[in-house]
């Protein structure tokens, strides 16, 4: 059986792609991805129209997508995250149908159950053989884990593997196996390494943000959860990384050996593994070269599928075993609801990713964020968009104090006993607006629907409207 085809056009033709179908992509090449643009260019040349894209994330590198929307090639978009620059353009309502937002766990859940059908998956492969075995751990465009590609590979009608590093069969240690793959295409370049392993992976140097991180570490210590077997997830924002660094020192000082750590894996998390803070890293997405090198060489650093990471319907789901997750927020409201989808104007500038999955699973969900971003208060009476419902969020750490969800009186008393600056979330809001003045929040809950935001269980949690 020869799966190697001569061009993307040939692969598209053989896949049987027709008007109105759904194609999928993974986002492991992040802001360095070339594959989504290459595939759409080829499809547009072939005159196929009215496609839905189901991509685990969309980045600003995908700006050419806007042209394919304007010329009718793409009419639907389903994803878990959209970058700020392309998000602002999409927020004007370019798509005829509402964008569908899922979470990183909800997406594979829906794909595996068949609720979300993928006709053809186009999967970037940093290294592949001509039978379709592939991995992200090697090659000039290495990205490490391919966790978000598993469900697509296994459940799409047809699976096309696209690589810039074709190796002789068989590729040993492949992440995803040839039994899932229909066609293999070789191209010059699937991605730009500078964009693949870039992003928000630098620890903050801001004294206030470092102080927020210190307070967060003190909260974790006071929570009673920092014991042997501790399972932890943190994001890759500057404050979250500082939390990881502070937590490492705390765990070493106390001799605590955790079970697993996950999230976007960065050098800071790899350091924790190597220092003996955890027995394993479970990795759905690498954020830097150190993480890629680690997953390639260290057997304690596992690659896991998005379903195993976060799917509410999987037989095993790692977020459910988390003790603590540390997450960011763009907005947060009095009910502890968190928005990481939009800015205050209602423009899309993100998405849940795994935010609401991890929040739902962890015993303690912490938001770390400055109370003000310039003049914009973090806290407001009601968030512009509910990404993560407040009943899954326990603690907010700011530079002006720590707010605890009223449902978690246990945590509140532990924090108070530890001398942490516990405040009511409304008091923090008052602190903020004493500095900023009272904002006039725009009413924008009308007009053309921009996006439907689905919670991880498939229920509609919020609706976004187009921004003029």
């Amino acid at each position: 059986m020869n799966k190697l085809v001569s061009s993307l056009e040939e692969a598209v033709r053989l896949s049987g792609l027709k008007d109105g179908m759904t194609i999928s992509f993974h986002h492991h090449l992040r802001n360095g991805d070339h594959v989504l643009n290459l595939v759409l260019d080829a499809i547009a040349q072939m005159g196929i129209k009215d496609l839905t894209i189901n991509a685990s994330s969309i980045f600003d590198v995908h700006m050419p997508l806007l042209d394919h929307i304007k010329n009718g090639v793409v009419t639907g978009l389903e994803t878990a995250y959209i970058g700020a620059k392309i998000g602002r353009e999409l927020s004007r309502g370019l798509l005829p149908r509402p964008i569908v937002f899922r979470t990183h766990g909800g997406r594979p859940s829906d794909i595996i159950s068949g609720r979300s059908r993928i006709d053809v998956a186009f999967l970037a492969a940093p290294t592949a053989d001509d039978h379709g075995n592939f991995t992200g751990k090697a090659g000039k465009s290495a990205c490490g884990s391919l966790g978000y590609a598993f469900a697509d590979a296994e459940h799409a009608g047809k699976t096309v593997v696209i690589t810039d590093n074709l190796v002789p069969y068989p590729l040993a240690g492949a992440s995803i196996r040839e039994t899932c793959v229909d066609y293999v295409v070789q191209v010059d370049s699937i991605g730009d390494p500078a964009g693949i392993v870039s992003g928000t992976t630098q620890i903050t140097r801001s004294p206030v943000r470092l102080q927020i991180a210190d307070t967060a570490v003190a909260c974790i210590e006071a929570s009673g959860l920092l014991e042997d077997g501790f399972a932890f997830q943190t994001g890759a924002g500057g404050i979250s990384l500082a939390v990881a660094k502070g937590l490492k020192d705390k765990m070493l000082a106390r001799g605590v050996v955790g079970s697993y750590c996950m999230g976007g894996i960065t050098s800071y998390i790899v350091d924790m593994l190597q220092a003996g803070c955890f027995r394993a890293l479970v990795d759905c997405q690498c954020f830097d070269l150190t993480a890629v090198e680690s997953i390639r060489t260290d057997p304690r650093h596992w690659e896991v599928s998005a379903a195993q990471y976060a799917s509410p319907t999987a037989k095993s789901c790692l977020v459910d075993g988390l003790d603590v997750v540390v997450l960011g927020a763009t907005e947060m409201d009095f009910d502890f609801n968190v928005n990481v989808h939009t800015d205050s104007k209602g423009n899309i500038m993100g998405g849940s990713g795994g935010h609401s999955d991890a929040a739902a699973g962890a015993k303690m969900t912490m938001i770390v964020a400055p109370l003000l971003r310039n003049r914009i208060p973090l806290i407001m009476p009601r968030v512009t968009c509910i990404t993560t419902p407040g009943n899954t969020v326990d603690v907010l750490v700011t530079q002006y104090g720590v707010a605890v969800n009223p449902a978690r009186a246990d945590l509140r008393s532990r924090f108070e006993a530890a001398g942490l600056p516990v405040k009511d979330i409304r008091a923090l809001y008052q602190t903020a607006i004493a500095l900023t003045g009272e904002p006039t929040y725009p009413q924008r809950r009308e007009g053309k629907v921009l996006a439907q935001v689905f919670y991880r269980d498939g229920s509609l949690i919020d609706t976004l409207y187009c921004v003029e």
Partner: protein
Amino acid sequence: MWKGMNHMNLTRAAGAGTDKSGDVLVWAEPGGSPVQIEVESSVADLFGGAILAAVQETAAACGVTAGRIRIQDKGALDYVIRARVETALRRSGGEA
């Protein structure tokens, strides 16, 4: 608020502030009466009214009744806007 003058004539074009986030750039120059104010702000949706009021009140407190004030705001707090506007006005009209 500076109460150094009851009336100030803007006599030359002058600027103040920076384009850093949390700050504001202000330009003041001679012009007709009443004072013409242009506000551009990254937080106009949330604070447009408050920003305009801060500029107007500062101009009035400095005794400026004619001229043109333009601001480009990067999310500055109220006290910063008032300070930068006052600086620009005093550079434009009061002190050399």
